[in-house]
């Protein structure tokens, strides 16, 4: 029937848009780009979650499938690495809050600390791999080791990307080009980092209890 769309037609002269979501009040403006960047990051994190969910599902199924599962002896350095990563996340979070309140000097210190700890984590992961190789455990040794290498490599590669972002922010900060107004890139990087931190803790739990 013609003209049956009554609900959205507007009466009278142009009025502000009706109640409800109208895309944030219009295009352009810092608010929109900030929100878009955060949305984009959340969407990226959703995809990464799905990928690790698929790997987890494969892991759990494989473990339950046959009786050739040799639980992997977790290198002890992994526990230290976990602490380092959590510490780096904490440092970044402290940095982020300092930036918000304009304490740029402190921001620089905490952010750099977080970045360095992040790089230390990656080194620690490399060392864990080294320990496994010394013990004769490689990617094809047994199913458990295959998954361990895949999980840690996938996580590590994502974290490496995160480190690049952290370094970029650090450089901007040291060049004094990162004020509270440029908060978005800090927020987005920190969010990414916290997610990977959480993901690592989850992976440790998986290895410990489902290994």
């Amino acid at each position, binding site marked *: *029937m013609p003209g049956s769309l009554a609900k959205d037609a507007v009466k009278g002269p142009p009025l502000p848009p009706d109640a409800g979501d109208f895309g944030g009040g219009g295009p352009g403006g810092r608010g929109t780009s900030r929100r878009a*960047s955060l949305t984009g990051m959340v969407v990226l994190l959703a*995809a*990464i979650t799905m*990928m690790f969910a698929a790997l987890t599902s494969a892991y759990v199924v494989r473990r339950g499938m046959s009786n050739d599962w040799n639980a992997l002896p977790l290198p002890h350095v992994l526990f230290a690495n976990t602490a380092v990563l959590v510490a780096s996340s904490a440092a970044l979070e402290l940095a982020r809050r300092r930036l918000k309140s304009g304490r740029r000097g402190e921001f620089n210190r905490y952010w750099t600390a977080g970045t360095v700890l992040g790089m230390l984590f990656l080194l620690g992961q490399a060392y864990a791999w080294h320990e496994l190789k010394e013990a004769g455990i490689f990617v*094809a040794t047994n199913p458990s080791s295959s998954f361990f290498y895949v999980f840690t490599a996938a996580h590590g590669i994502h974290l490496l990307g995160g480190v690049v972002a952290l370094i970029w922010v650090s450089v901007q900060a040291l060049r004094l080009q990162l004020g509270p107004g440029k908060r978005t890139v800090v927020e987005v990087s920190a969010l990414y980092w916290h997610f990977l931190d959480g993901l690592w803790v989850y992976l440790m739990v998986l290895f410990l209890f489902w290994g």
Partner: protein
Amino acid sequence: MSSPEVHSAHHAPTSFIGKYVFSKDHKVIGIQYYFLALFSVLLGMTLSLLMRFHMVHPDMKVGWFEKLWPTAAAGGIMTPELYLSLMTMHGTIMVFFVLTTAPQSGFGNYFLPIQIGAEDMAFPTLNMLSFWTTFLALVVMVAAFFVQGGAPLSGWTAYPPLSGVGRISGPGEGMGQTLWIISIAIFCGASLMGAINFIATTLDLRAKGMSLMRMPLTCWTWFVTAILGLFGFAVLLAAGILLLLDRTAGTSFFIPAGLVVSDQILNHKGGSPLLWQHLFWFFGHPEVYIAILPGMGVTSQLLSTFSRKPIFGYRAMIYAILAIGFLGFLVWGHHMFMSGMSPYSAFAFSVLTMTIGVPSAIKTFNWIGTLWGGKIRFTTAMMFALGFVSLFVTGGLSGIFLGQPSLDLYFHDTYFVVGHFHMIMGVAAIFGMFAGTYYWFPKMFGRMMNETIGKIHFYLTFLGVYAIFTPMHFLGIAGNPRRYADFTNFEFMNSLMPVHTFMTHAAYFTAAVQLLFLFNLFWSLKKGAKATDNPWESTTLEWTIPSPPPFDNFGGHHPVVYHGAYEYSVPGAAKDYVMQTDPAAVSH
């Protein structure tokens, strides 16, 4: 990632490279994707013609086969392995580089920002990267033809162990398969980048007044399709990495112990080919909705425009799109009914599969409701939209048969399946792309396509595709197996060969008809009649701007939206359509 407001502060790029090659303009990127898909569809179609030829002339010597494939077509006769590799690449190229690309990344990139009133996508640089990553994926995929052993032959579904044990399992399974996996992995990355852009743009960049419930249905389908792609391709990437490791690092994610291939005992331990199937089809089913949803959006848009009526049941259409998207993640097992699964699991998947029929039927009835009582304008775009509805019904109906495990017992791996997915993907989705082309060509290129040639293209293609794919259903019922290079060894197939011959001739005919389209497309680019801003008298935002649009879409203005997307034949309005941005209020 560059932010939107920075984009508008820049001037349009001036160098050739900046304007046409490494462009960050969503319009250019959309056209780049479109032509990438066009190249891919011609390549995929050529492969299918080679396949159809071989099926009816398996023993005919063809001189240039031998020139192209000295080993695989020695003596000018295609080996079964060559046939299977052509089949693999046909499916792969069509599904990934045509059906996932043109409707979403092609038209979506071009028109999503404009239809919601934005100057560009949320992340223009990422957008550019996503195109060139897709391009790289295509290069790697095509490279598989040229390496030693040639292209892989494990099907677009790449089931292990065949795809997982390496060169030992046959020609094409060496470097060819590895390149295939790498190409798909690259494609997953590109899709992810695109999905981020589509979702962020839809959620955050809508113009003032463009509420979600005023968005054109095209935008809704692009949005939901992006979410499907986001989750689906992430899982495919995981699966692809595991398969690559099985092939190159000696792991055994998918390869069971004790396999003997080509007289050699393989050194793998206890993996599961079924695991690949689950992971692949968890992606694979949402993938087919990725292929069809944008076509549904375009169809809704066109049926409304060319009936001069609002879309019937706009809200229901949105809920149906959401339902199809959501349910699409729950039905992957219907591709695995014959894999040995428990009948209870099969039952669950079957019921869920039939549930998807509900929102699909709602959409179909709403399309009919839109047409009902309308003043129909039979433009070529409209014809293809109508054709979409027809083919969606035909293709969808055979899906209901296949969704019954008891029937799939018989139909699995027969031509019934081939007929089903070609109807729905190979034809309905393609018709959606044709419809979008004829509809949006004036806006993209500032010229009209020729309507007469367009109509001939439509009628002959419509006839042709029904001629090619309808008989496949009957062949399937008669027991014709799929993925066989030839049937000359089977006596029961003798009586079916004339049907194959008919389908092959129909395929040649339909392929030839596409030359009309290609001619129309390229000729109109230069010589078509100049298009006005709104040649179709359509209501959505892209028709408020010049054809083709300026660099920043709205010429520096920020559009304000006052109406929904389908205000046609509104009582009391001056014309039989009210633009979304028309402030002159029309009351109800």
